[in-house]
């Protein structure tokens, strides 16, 4: 019945949710962090492609809330709860937060991967959502797909192939 399964795609600085038997996917995470939050029993899952750690750094008049860890994750939780997920049952898996290039620069943007990871973990802690598994850091890109049915997070990299969290 694979033809009835759909893959919901999430772009950069975006988020979305899905339910079993479908999956949700985001491609080419570098220093961005892909954060999956899901209810394993109701089989509802959401994914946010976080680009930056902290919305207070924004210099935009009209800010994209989906871009920042501290604003995107509460929105994702709200969407999951409206779709029928139980707040107390939510769990999280994360991947990404790499440092793609290593050169010295005055710009602290160069350490953005680890900072994104820290910010996502901090936000999950604040919301009381346990972090079940993570694959972060390093210097490689990752494409991730989460299957709402099984709770598996598939992670693909160019050099190391696919792994499952």
């Amino acid at each position, binding site marked *: 019945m694979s033809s009835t399964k759909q893959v919901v795609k999430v*772009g*950069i*600085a*975006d988020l979305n949710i899905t339910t079993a038997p479908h999956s949700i996917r985001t*491609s*080419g*995470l*570098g*220093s*961005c962090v892909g954060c999956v939050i899901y209810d394993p029993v109701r089989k509802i899952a959401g994914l946010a492609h976080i*680009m*930056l750690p902290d919305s207070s*750094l*924004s*210099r*935009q008049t009209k800010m*994209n809330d989906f*871009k920042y860890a501290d604003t995107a994750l509460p929105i994702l939780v709200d969407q999951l709860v409206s779709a029928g997920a139980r707040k107390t049952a939510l769990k999280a898996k994360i991947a990404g937060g*790499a440092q*793609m*290039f*290593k*050169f*010295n*620069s*005055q*710009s602290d*943007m160069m350490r*953005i991967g680890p900072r994104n990871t820290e910010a996502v973990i901090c936000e999950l802690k604040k919301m009381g959502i346990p972090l079940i598994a993570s694959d972060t850091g390093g*210097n*490689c*890109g*990752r*494409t991730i797909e989460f299957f709402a049915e099984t709770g598996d997070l598939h992670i693909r990299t*160019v*050099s190391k192939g696919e792994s499952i969290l």
Partner: protein
Amino acid sequence: MQIEKLTSVQLDVLREIGNIGAGNAATSMSLLTNQKVDMDVPVVQLIPFGQVMELIGGADELVVAIYLRILGEAPGTVYFIMSLAEAEQLVRQIIHDNSFTLGMEEEIDDFAISALMEAGNILTGSYLSALSDFININMQPSIPNLAIDMAGAILSVGLIELSNVTDYAIVIDTRMNNDEDRNRFKGHFFLLPDTETVPKIFNALGIDYYE
């Protein structure tokens, strides 16, 4: 700062910048590979972040990229991007060995990496120096970096530099190619000026940013 709207004159200026940078780089490339290298008219686009990856086949696409940050008065990011096959072709031409393969299954050998780095160095450096001369603004290149990875992961490095200010990137995209011979070298130059840089460029060239 609004970069969401650009006039046709401003677009022309940015296209010319792409022309001058890539023209100089194409000459260097031609000398390096001892072959004719052509380039297309640059395409200047103001597009949402998500669409930037689409310009080179999507966020998942495996690419070879040489990347540097422009430091100094007019910061920005320069990418030279090739497909794996194109990079392989480039190394073949530099080392005069037509049997060379990048073979992603094993570790890519140091020799190929250093050939690619050197080519990238020359190309991005000549792109930048032409640009800097033309607009007469001091632009310092960072040390270039090489990555062989997914387009999304690589391009987001440049986008993150813009992302506290905007959700759009100005991409000045110049393709180098040769239509007659598929075996010749190809590649893309991407210039992503930081938001604050765009008015400075227009200013330097005597164009009113707000006209």
